[in-house]
């Protein structure tokens, strides 16, 4: 038998024949590794996906006409086509028109509701979204003022772009709550407004939501400005400016919680190993009396620490992975991809931390005097 094998044999036997001692430390390492693996997986994976979702809390780019003329929807569509397809959340045209309803002046807005749902997902509608040319969405303030509710009729009248009078019977499909100025307007499908007002194919502005950071957004704006001279893009800060910092703060919080758990794990491992060293003072003294060098004693306890770290980490990492999956599915509603790099990192980190937690116990072990083997208890 080689010395190498004897070392492993002592290590293995010491661990397996004295199992109960190790269970608390093993559990602590497993929990630490699980939290590390779980939190890091979520931190790495979810924000990447959530950026897109966060971004959808409002347009971060607005397209208007470069001159005083109305914005051509065709030009706007060309501009939107310049944006990377996989990052485009939505693009919504808005066309404003002063009208009257039962002698009451108000602003009618033509838009595309299927895009509104993407760029303004916080809009809440009581009743139905408008579906055809005769239905509209009444802002909550308008509805209250005029006594409107879903199903009620409303006559919209005014003068079109050429000065001719128009009048249209419409039905309220739903009442809109946004908490913003939209509650003062009525919204209809853009083709309906185009029919009433004339000048089809134009809008006042197009709100665009792109899932990217502000630097990339500025670059995209520049390329639109270069390529399409009639369109003036500009970045807008709505929810967008705070979303990055919210994510950063959440991430920092998770890092801090993980760090605290890891510190607790290390304390638990250090305490267990210290107990083990105290319990085995006689054995350490004996080994020293037999001529063991300090580094041999240190190597044995370090070996035990590393085994403990690895043995606790493996199930812990598996657990953390399941935890991350469950949290991903139940809290964020998404499937989290397995990250082998992160898993390896988790294994190394938890094993290294376990070994680091053994430093003080090892110092205590090395300090044991050989003379104590001859002394009574």
């Amino acid at each position: 038998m080689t010395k190498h094998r004897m070392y492993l044999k002592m290590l293995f036997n010491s661990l397996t024949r004295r199992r109960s001692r190790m269970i608390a430390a093993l559990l602590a390492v497993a929990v630490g590794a699980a939290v590390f693996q779980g939190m890091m997986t979520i931190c790495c994976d979810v924000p990447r996906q959530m950026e897109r979702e966060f971004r959808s809390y409002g347009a971060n780019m607005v397209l208007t006409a470069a001159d005083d003329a109305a914005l051509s929807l065709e030009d706007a569509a060309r501009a939107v086509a310049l944006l990377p397809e996989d990052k485009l959340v939505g693009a919504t045209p808005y066309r404003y028109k002063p009208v009257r309803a039962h002698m009451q002046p108000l602003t009618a807005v033509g838009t595309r509701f299927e895009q509104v749902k993407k760029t303004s997902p916080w809009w809440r509608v009581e009743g139905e979204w408008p579906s055809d040319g005769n239905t509209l969405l009444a802002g909550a303030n308008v509805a209250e003022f005029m006594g409107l509710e879903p199903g009620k009729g409303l006559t919209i009248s005014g003068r079109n772009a050429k000065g001719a009078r128009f009048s249209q019977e419409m039905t309220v499909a739903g009442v809109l709550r946004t908490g913003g100025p939209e509650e003062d307007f009525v919204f209809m499908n853009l083709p309906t407004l185009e029919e009433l007002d004339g000048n089809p194919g134009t809008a006042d502005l197009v709100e665009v939501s792109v899932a990217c950071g502000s630097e990339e957004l500025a670059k995209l704006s520049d390329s639109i400005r270069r390529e399409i001279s009639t369109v003036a893009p500009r970045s807008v800060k709505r929810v967008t400016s705070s979303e990055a910092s919210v994510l950063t703060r959440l991430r920092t919080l998770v890092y801090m919680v993980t760090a605290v758990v890891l510190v607790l794990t290390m304390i638990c491992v250090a305490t267990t190993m210290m107990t083990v060293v105290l319990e085995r003072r006689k054995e350490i003294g004996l080994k020293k009396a037999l001529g063991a060098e300090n580094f041999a004693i240190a190597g044995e306890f370090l070996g035990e620490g590393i085994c403990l770290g690895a043995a606790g980490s493996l199930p812990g990492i598996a657990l953390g992975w399941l935890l991350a999956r469950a949290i991903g599915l139940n809290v964020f509603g998404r499937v989290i991809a397995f990250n082998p790099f992160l898993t390896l990192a988790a294994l190394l980190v938890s094993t290294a931390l376990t070994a680091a937690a053994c430093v003080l116990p090892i110092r205590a072990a090395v300090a044991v005097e050989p003379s104590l083997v001859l002394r009574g208890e």
Partner: protein
Amino acid sequence: MDIAAQAANILELRDVSMDYGQVKALQDVSLAVRKGEWLAVMGPSGSGKTTMMNVIGCMDRPTSGEVLLEGQDVARLLPGALTEIRRDRIGLIFQQFHLISYLTALENVMVAQYYHSMIDEAEAMGALERVGLRDRAAHLPRQLSGGEQQRVCIARALINYPRLILADEPTGNLDEANEAIVLSLLRRLHEEGSTIVVVTHSPGVAAQAERTVVLEHGRIAQSFLNR
């Protein structure tokens, strides 16, 4: 003492004192042990016997005095050097056996080889055979009787061919039958030329040695030849 006598001494203590704070565990002890001698150390509890064994066995350094091991003063050596001397020259037998609980009898013997130099399983088995425990090689300490454990301890003590065997009350935890076995093993080691220092409370055990010294309050009170 003349040069020839000094060369024949494997161990010599010169005015060795050991203080533990106020407690004077050893006071100016001087003692010479010849190569191949079998010496018994007796004395009441707390008289300094174990302290003397620790000093002789290079496990502790005295407060003052010289400890000559084969002519070399080890009293002032650093812990690292003491470790080396323990490993190469001293074999230890304990009252409490001190076998490692999670290793088999054979592995307990091999541990001494492990820290000493190379592991030789056949040789370790041979040592177990010498103490009559070949068939118990794979047993854990808790599966062995006290006498058997002590024999494993003896096998471990002699595996590296130490020049000095130190036994602190080796039969203190054994019944008469096992005491007889241990004594016959020590006698055989003595006949083979080993130097043995054995601490004991038992006059019967002490009588087996060639010479007895009696410690009292950290001093040598008597010294006499048994034969």
